[in-house]
């Protein structure tokens, strides 16, 4: 058994991707059903998403503004934006550990592009993001913050993050189906990543010699290109180059992995 994909493998993987992306009605329906189902019988329904993120931000915001000795009126808006974006990035990584195992019952019975289930995870997290954006709007109104023109850069930032997410979810999903210890490992690494990423703290607080913590941290890179525009800053060109570098690297890992082992996923379920 070779570790390298054959030409037929590449062709079928490309078909899986194009057909999967084209089946938008399936993955969007699945994603919306996931969210609906999760909150179906609760009174606040899916606004629990907004509410729980809000409670988290309020708690952390008060304590850390004292700890870091920052005024609440600048720290809480800063934190809210970061937490909301972090929730998206971390959510995609967490959810992608179960992307194929969750769909095991379907995949075992019917030929379906695997990409559909990857897109389902991404859309599910985008729906959660949409609910959390309410918090950013509320906090900005509360503290009288007006977004600067830099806010337009949220769009390219988010698009880059989504491309990286697609590749990451494919690779993680596939590996987690084969190696059942990986979801736990990823979960604990994610907790560490939260503290290594400038979510609660500011990049400036690191001091020059420790800037590698941000520069070589893919979470930090994607957090900054989405969050900085919301903080009123234009991200530097080097941040976009870093983001592109991460995407290329992820592509070099995910594409051959997916091409080679896509058909094996059902056998591992």
């Amino acid at each position: 058994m070779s570790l390298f994909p054959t030409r037929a493998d590449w062709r079928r993987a490309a078909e899986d991707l194009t057909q999967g992306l084209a089946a938008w009605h399936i993955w969007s329906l699945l994603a919306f059903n996931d969210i609906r189902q999760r909150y179906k019988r609760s009174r606040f329904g899916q606004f629990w998403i907004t509410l729980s993120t809000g409670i988290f931000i309020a708690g952390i915001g008060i304590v850390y503004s004292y700890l870091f000795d920052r005024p609440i009126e600048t720290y809480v808006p800063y934190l809210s934006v970061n937490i909301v974006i972090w929730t998206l990035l971390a959510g995609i990584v967490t959810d992608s550990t179960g992307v194929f195992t969750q769909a095991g019952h379907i995949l075992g019975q019917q030929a379906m592009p695997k990409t559909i289930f990857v897109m389902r995870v991404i859309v599910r997290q985008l729906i959660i993001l949409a609910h959390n954006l309410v918090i950013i709007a509320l906090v900005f109104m509360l503290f009288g913050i007006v977004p600067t023109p830099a806010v337009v850069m949220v769009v390219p930032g988010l698009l880059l993050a989504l491309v990286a997410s697609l590749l990451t979810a494919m690779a993680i999903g596939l590996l987690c189906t084969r190696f059942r210890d990986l979801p736990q490992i990823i979960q604990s690494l994610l907790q560490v990543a939260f503290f290594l990423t400038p979510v609660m703290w500011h990049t400036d607080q690191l001091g020059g010699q420790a800037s590698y913590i941000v520069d070589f941290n893919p979470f930090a890179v994607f957090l900054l290109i989405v969050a900085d525009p919301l903080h009123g800053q234009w991200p530097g060109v080097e941040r976009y180059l870093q983001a592109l570098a991460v995407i290329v690297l992820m592509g070099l890992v995910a594409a051959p992995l997916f091409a080679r082992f896509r058909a094996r996923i059902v056998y591992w379920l």
Partner: protein
Amino acid sequence: MPSIALHRASVDFPIYNSRNRSLRNALLARVGGRLEEAGDLVTVRALEDISLTLNPGDRLALVGRNGAGKSTLLRVLAGAYEPTSGSAVIDGRVSSLFDLTMGMDAELTGADNVVLRGVFLGMSIAEARSYIPEVAEFSELGGFMHLPMRTYSSGMRLRLAFAISTVRTPDILLLDEFISVGDESFVRKTRERLERMIDKAHILVLASHSPQTLRAYCNRALLLHEGRIVGEGPIEAILARYKEQAA
């Protein structure tokens, strides 16, 4: 024209126990020296060297004892399992009615589930939605269509699932045992509908243990034993051989 062509298709299932499924062991097996677990991987060969061509008009019966590979073969024909070696080319729209409730969600209403199941069958959302009245009528669920499916009895769930799953005729129909759903009057309705579907489908593959059922719907047969084709031909001859084998 719809067709199926398997060429020397084999299906091997690797069985990972909790030990060799872990990353630790995969890493150790590479860098470590002698490891007893290295040869621990058990592989089940579910299908071996299956070559098979199906064309429009073919009504194939799959015969064999439990574990002979009938269901696995159906899943290969459905395209769910791509063979480990050899090839499988499936051309045409396949409907595999192995688990009627596949993809359905108990928290959603009957109508929502019609849409969900319809989309899995290859419909657009609008198309699936347009079938809701027809499904409601056939399944006789009436007002229950707008209640969550968790309030249904298991019989009601199957009625709903059957009604939507059979609303459109596929090119290739795959059945694991002839479906029988519901109480006496409904069984008659499902039989009629399924027979119409079988009639209209270009290719049928039916796995069953009932000789009467196979005789009624199939025109050729395949005898499977331990994952291999051990007999192929007219239905009566194969059924006779199966009886011999079982005795």
